[in-house]
């Protein structure tokens, strides 16, 4: 089984983002990790290849040279090798991203399955799996929290809200966007981390892959979200503070 996992190199969700200029941030000050939702994708792919007994899991990343560290730590989860399509553009538009991933996979081999995370936590666009599927002319399901692959077909479950779930059926190969609940991503052990250091990571320049690929971020401005300045505290006994809260909320037409 030949599985490709698209992995994004993103700022750690716990990191503070220091903005600079109109639409940029200080990348040097931030710790980067694999996009948290992509970890479910890596884990699922590794488990499928382990169960199948043959094949490989190839990680594909579009990002800066530093993304090699993110690829290494995900290779330690059991993936076979990595492809890094290099760009210095921090906010690559989603159309270019999908085209770059598509071209890199196509050049490398023939996918039986393609995984991505359901959304990247930096740009929050949620569209790469769909655009990839369109480029490959394959079925796609996103926000998948349960998956069964059997003889050329896939059955995926996605949450609809209010605890309801949708069961989708499609043929393989297909593109699956993963989310929490699908599996428990493993913590790599020391020997796995050592092994990952020797795994192959092939680097490609975006322009070499396809000269027509030109990232055009459509980002005009990036601003910090104004933080609340601190709570107005309700005072007195439990009953008194509750009464005060209800009064305050009513005045503000929140109730």
């Amino acid at each position, binding site marked *: 089984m030949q599985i490709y996992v698209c992995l994004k190199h993103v700022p750690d969700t716990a990191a503070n983002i220091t903005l600079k200029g109109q639409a940029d941030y200080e990348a040097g000050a931030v710790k980067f990790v694999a996009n948290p939702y992509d970890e479910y994708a890596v884990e699922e792919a590794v488990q499928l290849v382990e169960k199948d007994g043959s094949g490989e899991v190839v990680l594909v990343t579009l990002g800066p040279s530093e993304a090699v560290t993110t690829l290494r730590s995900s290779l330690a989860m059991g993936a076979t090798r990595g492809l890094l399509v290099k760009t210095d553009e921090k906010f690559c538009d989603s159309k270019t991203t999908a085209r770059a991933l598509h071209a890199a996979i196509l050049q490398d081999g023939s996918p039986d399955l393609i995984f991505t995370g359901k959304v990247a936590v930096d740009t929050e666009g949620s569209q790469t799996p*769909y655009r990839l599927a369109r480029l490959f002319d394959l079925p796609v399901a996103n926000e998948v929290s349960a998956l069964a692959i059997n003889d050329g077909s896939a059955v995926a479950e996605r949450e609809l809200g*209010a*605890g*309801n779930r949708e069961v989708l059926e499609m043929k393989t190969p297909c593109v699956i966007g993963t989310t*929490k609940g699908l599996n428990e991503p493993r913590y790599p052990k020391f020997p796995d981390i050592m092994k990952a250091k020797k795994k192959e990571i092939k680097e490609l320049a975006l322009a070499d892959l396809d000269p027509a690929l030109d990232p055009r971020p459509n980002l005009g401005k990036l601003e910090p*979200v104004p933080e609340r300045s601190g709570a107005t505290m309700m005072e007195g006994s439990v009953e008194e503070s*509750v009464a005060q809260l209800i009064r305050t909320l009513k005045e503000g037409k929140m*109730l």
Partner: protein
Amino acid sequence: MYDDRKYTEENMPKTGILLEVENTELKDINFGLVTAARDTGANEVLAFTTEELGTEAQNDLARYGVSQLIRLRTDSADITSSPDNCAAACVQAAREYGLEYCLGLATAFGRDIFARMAALLDVELAADVLQIDFKAKTAVKSHFSGKTMATVSLQETPGLLTVRPNAISPVEQPATLESSVFQADIQSQAKVAVKEIKTSDDRKMDLTEAPIIITGGRPIGKPENYAMLQECADVLGGAVGASRAAVDAGYAPHSMQVGQTGKTVSPNLYLACGVSGAVQHFAGMKTSKVIVGINKDKDAPIFEKCDYGIVGDMFEVVPALTKALQQEKQG
């Protein structure tokens, strides 16, 4: 005499919206979407749905400013159990009606259909936006899990956007509504088929759609204790959420989780009970209009980042709140 008003109306940019309908009922979150699309009267709003809507729903849509209600139909393909076909029918309708913008809600349904439309049309999609400026052709959305706001440009036609439920408050602006049917002529391109909808036993309000949310953190202690929050939510007309710590401890299902790896919500009122105030939790709820923190620890970080606070044990405060709200209701 030259009719100035009519001239303007005919040239108004057309904005299409895809309605969210559940069991033939129009969801309340649609009205904020109509308001967003209407842009205080600058745009004509065309509402699309695959379902048949009753008179009451039609009147409601008219009251918020929808001037055309269009039922999407097709004889050539199944659009109800195939998201691919539904997206293809929407794309065809967008072309046929000359829509400049197509807006949907950032719900499980809207996110899926609009991403499929974006892929089919090969145009950008502004996902989960909080504000739209049609004049400047920009929209504001979250970047970095709610830590920053990004202004993205809307340069392509049709401009595709999904709007976060409750982010834009509904404002009434009556229009005269006409209903019609659009017969889409599409070849089935169904690659994915919906086989089944697994419904949960208790029909609760979905978190992302709830106007009020009351969330319980890890101190809730056991799953049964969420009943106390549910009782309060029932009086408030809201839904119950959980923090990641509570979900990881097995007290609540992941479908109830608010925050980084859970749901992003934007209710009018968010009550956080026994939630410490981690960055990851705030990422999922900081766009709420009002946040109230209830925590035993007066030094809990949540109090630095919310609007109103009560220092107290949620097992005392919440029942007192429920009781006081019930008394208010009764008289």
